[in-house]
């Protein structure tokens, strides 16, 4: 009897593993196919029955990447994402601290007002923001790209949740020593919140990197394009040259994939903090 149960569990385990492996394969197939195509000849991809390159054509990479200024696109994306991360971390930690640790009239109402903005579809504010940036003469500039993205209500929410979990005693000890709110925030709360800050920074970075619509609207010249807009433009220029396009796709996906590989746990924590309230 025990033997039969173990056997049943073992077969169950195997079928589970197989099922999971199949799911992973399906999910990963587009990426594998992208990598394979990026190494094939331009006409080779149209020959039927061939899924993988006969011999990898590495020269696709330098050729495709010099066809448009991808270096510049990456630099722009990096600048954009870095400034957005810095801005969101600064505004969200400060505001999150105020909502979690300070006591002032109207706090909860104000917090609800902040949260309510998460319900608003981004497209509503897109038109006025565009007109404002246009009136300021910031179209096609870094200021224009960055200025609207410097605060994240989700980030404020995350930081507030985190700051609330810190024990009061730490704060009280600092207060006895005569520290004001600013000192407590900087030298007690913020160092303790490093994991949450890391999560926020990571999400802010990825979101900024993936942001497509706003950069599409406020940039015009090739020199100001970010990677996402660059790839979309590249796609419409090299419509039928699939290997080149796949090169662009690989190059766009790789940095984020690597980043994700090394920072998985922060992602998972962020999602779980968000999901369980």
């Amino acid at each position: 009897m025990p033997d039969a149960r173990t056997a049943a569990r073992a077969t169950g385990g195997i079928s589970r593993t197989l099922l999971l492996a199949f799911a992973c394969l399906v999910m990963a197939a587009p990426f594998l196919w992208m990598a394979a195509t990026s190494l094939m000849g331009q006409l080779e991809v149209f020959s039927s029955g061939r899924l993988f390159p006969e011999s990898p054509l590495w020269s696709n990479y330098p050729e495709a990447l010099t066809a448009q200024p991808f270096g510049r696109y990456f630099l722009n994306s990096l600048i954009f994402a870095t400034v957005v991360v810095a801005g969101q971390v600064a505004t969200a930690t400060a505001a999150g601290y105020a909502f979690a640790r300070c006591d002032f009239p109207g706090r909860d109402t104000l917090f609800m007002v902040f949260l309510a903005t998460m319900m608003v579809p981004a497209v509503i504010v897109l038109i006025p923001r565009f007109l404002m940036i246009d009136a300021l003469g910031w179209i096609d500039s870094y200021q224009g790209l960055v200025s609207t993205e410097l605060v994240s209500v989700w980030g404020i929410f995350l930081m507030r949740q985190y700051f609330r979990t810190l024990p009061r005693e730490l704060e009280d000890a600092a207060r006895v020593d005569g520290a004001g709110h600013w000192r407590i925030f900087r030298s007690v709360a913020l160092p303790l919140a490093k994991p949450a800050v890391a999560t926020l920074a990571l999400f802010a970075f990825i979101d900024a990197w993936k942001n497509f619509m706003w950069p599409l609207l406020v940039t015009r010249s090739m020199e100001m394009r970010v990677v996402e807009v660059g790839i979309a433009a590249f796609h419409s220029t090299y419509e039928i040259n699939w290997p080149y396009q796949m090169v662009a796709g690989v190059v766009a996906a790789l940095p984020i994939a690597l980043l994700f590989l090394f920072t998985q746990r922060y992602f998972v924590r962020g999602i779980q903090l968000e999901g369980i309230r």
Partner: protein
Amino acid sequence: MSGAGATNAAGAAGVTPLVATGAAAAATAVILLVAADALSGAREQATREEARAAASLYEVPGVTEADVVSLLDGRARIVAPEAGGSGPGAFAYRAGALQPAAWIAVEPADEGNGWPWAAFVLALLGVLCMAAWAAARRRAPPPSRYPAAATLLCAALFALVAAAAQQWAHGELGAVSSARLARGLRAAGIAGAAGADPEAAARVAGLPWASGAALGEPDRIWTMPREAGEAIAADPQLRSAPRYTVVAGGATYHGGAVALREGPAGRAETPAGTLHLVFLGYEETSSPTVALIASAIGSALVVSLVLFLLPLAARPRALARTLAAWGFLAPAAALLLVFTFGPLLFSLWISLHDWRLVDPAHPFVGLENYRALLSDGGWWSAILNTGVFTLHVPAAMAVALALALLTRESRRAVRWARLALFLPSVTSVVAIAVVWKWLLNDGYGLANRALGAIGIGPVAWLTSPDVALVSLMVIGVWMVVGYQMVVFQAGLAAIPRVWYDAAKVDGAGPWQRFRHITLPGLRHTLFFVLVTSVIGSFQVFSLVYVMTEGGPLGATDVAVYHIYREAWEFLRFGNAAAMSWILFGVVFAATWLHFRLLERRGAHA
């Protein structure tokens, strides 16, 4: 200790009415200053234009200096070019010369109706109200709803002041406008009398005369029979101060000018022998409305802030704490105010106007944009497509839940599966769209090759109107499944194991355990995922932009893409803003419905 606190409180209470009154007075002054500033800007512009008109009249051969002086009722002086430069004026060039022939110096006209008395009186009343209220509050304890009521009162008061100021500024601008029209007409008349051709006379007038294609806006040109037009043009009263009000396209236009050109012969809609009457409105001179509304809102905020802080003034510790908290909130709040709340109001404002990017005039049209959308089939089919696309969310949730259950037992499997499954939801959407476009390629994509291998004919994934949206939904599932799985994993981990053990002891099978423990335990997680994913899927854009551009035949034209095209391809910002508000309504309704359904379920369970 307590004695010191009491004196402090008494002192603060003594200051209270003073501070409130001062804040209200300062805020009112700001509004009036904004109105006055807008007006002086318009006046300055009008003077510069007068100088330019006088200069260009001077350039017409045959026009004498006396003509130029009489054009501006003696306010113009003609001096040597090197003597000019101080004060408003313009250089005049004689035909063919590169050096200026003269400097036309112009003294600003003192047109207008004087001071905004109505706004002043209202403002005075408001300040008195504030003072009275603040004084009264010294005796009675503050009611708990005090801040909200104060904010509302402030807002109402400043709206009134702003409205009065705007009324006044509009009156003044109207005077500037009609003076400008009269001068334009007169300049054209003088130039015509001196023998200039109508084209040159129109140029001298500096008004948008009807010159065929140059004036593409038909609702600003009033076509009339030749006799009527000539009668108007010859009317001496009209020449001194032309002033019409015409409602066209929902907007009110003031002023008017008679065109010198005849309508093109042979076109049915403008029969020969007609004249065009061109209307130009205040919109030509920048309207102070937006600045006034902004300053009224800002003033209401400042004053209610002061009123809000006043009760705390008696308690220095509480005040310091509040100010510290505001300091921490300030960066985020300021950015949200400027780039989220401000734009929300602005967007509503835009949606009530006929707002085109290329046209400097934005006539108010009320709810016309919304009314037009009601019968706009393209827009509603975009909403429908968005709704259909959103149906991928439940499918994705089912798959994600299955995957979360599959990876539940082993920690290692969780980690590896997470890595493979989560990747689509973090990588670049544009890259993903490009890859899938290749994958779903009609002739050579992986999908059709795989189907071909098992003998199923090629499917036109993205090129058939019946299939394209479904293809996008499949990609949608693929993209969100990993994210949803991670959330479900977290939710599953929160369900106590003991419940399962107890159920097993009771003899419950796997299905019963799933039905009666897992699903109820995940209720909140499921709801959270459903709401966030639905809100997300209503905003799908990049996929459509890269893969289908809304095609084939509009089959994948989703709401945000439709709005994008309306605004940035057709440049109709007013319509696009109205659409985005309707989309907001739909999203809001969907979320609300979810909440209601959950509530009902909760009540029955």
